């Protein structure tokens, strides 16, 4: 068992979990934008910075990202020292200057007293803060259709060569997992467009309500070895079918 203290509270970890997990379990709030339980941490947003020290370090301390730093025996973690807060504010200033319209960034910045960033605001800045949740979610759990491309200020999330992806199934996991709603998509009843590709949302075979995209159904069917047609009935019609079969048993 690894024993350490976070903000004066003694916490224990059996298998060297990351500091963020331990802090949250102990009820200590650390702000994050790039953290998602479904994927490995990436340390992309730099908001979860905490200060660590040890008694034998003679007052020396360092800043680490809580989401990537594993628990160590005897570690003393502080999550809201002046140095931590100053760093966090600086990160928020930069994020807000980059994405001035992103609601999640604005809300968090306001909590830290930042309404207008001190840096030049990128008025054309989109909402993407390059947190990498979408690319990690897609690569880990779906088909890996998107990744970060280019370098420096030109860095962005895109499909290879910005072309309609062969492997994207249009499941929208990227757009729905995005903390800042940065991924553009459009959908009406029968179609869904995302990442430059338009998908057909298959109508329910019973009532015609939209179900899933043909590509997603095919992907799920292939993964689990079932028929693609199994997925083309909406939940309301499936409940009705279940009800009908119950009725046959009862009466």
């Amino acid at each position, binding site marked *: 068992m690894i024993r350490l203290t976070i903000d004066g509270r003694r916490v224990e970890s059996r298998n060297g979990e990351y500091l963020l997990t331990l802090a949250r379990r102990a009820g200590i709030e650390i702000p994050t934008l790039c953290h998602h339980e*479904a994927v490995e941490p990436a340390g992309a947003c730099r908001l979860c910075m905490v200060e660590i020290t040890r008694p034998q370090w003679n007052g020396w301390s360092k800043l680490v990202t809580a989401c990537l730093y594993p628990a160590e025996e005897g570690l003393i973690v502080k999550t809201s020292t002046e140095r931590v807060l100053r760093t966090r504010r600086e990160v928020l200033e930069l994020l807000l200057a980059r994405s001035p319209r992103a609601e999640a960034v604005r809300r968090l910045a306001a909590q830290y007293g930042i309404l207008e960033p001190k840096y030049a605001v990128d008025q054309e800045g989109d909402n993407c803060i390059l947190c990498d949740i979408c690319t990690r979610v897609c690569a880990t759990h779906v088909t890996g259709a998107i990744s970060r491309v280019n370098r420096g200020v030109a860095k962005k999330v895109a499909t290879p060569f910005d072309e309609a992806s062969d492997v994207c199934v249009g499941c929208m996991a990227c757009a729905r997992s995005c903390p800042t709603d940065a991924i553009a998509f459009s959908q009406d009843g029968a179609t869904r467009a995302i990442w430059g590709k338009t998908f057909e949302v298959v109508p329910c075979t019973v009532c015609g309500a939209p179900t899933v995209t043909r590509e997603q159904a095919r992907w799920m069917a292939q993964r689990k070895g079932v028929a693609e047609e199994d997925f083309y009935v909406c939940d309301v019609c499936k409940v009705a079918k279940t009800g*009908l079969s119950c009725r046959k048993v009862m009466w």
Partner: protein
Amino acid sequence: MESKLMHVFPGKCTACRNCEQACAFAHLHEGRPTRSRIRADADPQLREGKHVLVVCYQCDAAACVAACPANALWRDTETGAINHIAERCIRCGSCVAACPFGNMRWEPLAQHPSKCDLCKGDPVCVRFCPTGAIQYK
């Protein structure tokens, strides 16, 4: 595993929809019975005073669990319920498409799936059923 089961007695159901209201209040904190996780009078075709309740079966070999690419659906070993872990969910909608009984629902406002979690072992719908059409034992 000695867990209780949700028992549904369609013959006792009067389609009063108390269970739907109770479920909506318990999980959404507002009276929106259309988003309830239990459905009273599931079959719209045949009425004749015969009403069927449909609620998640917490299947042993569950299609929703098999379809979830992110392992966001886990069985609670105490209640036997398959719980949807919102933090782990990537909101791809696979579980909703996979459930053959329509008990995995899509929450359009929150944009994530929702399912019966047996209210951590004390289903609210059971408490509000006046005729005993749903029992948890």
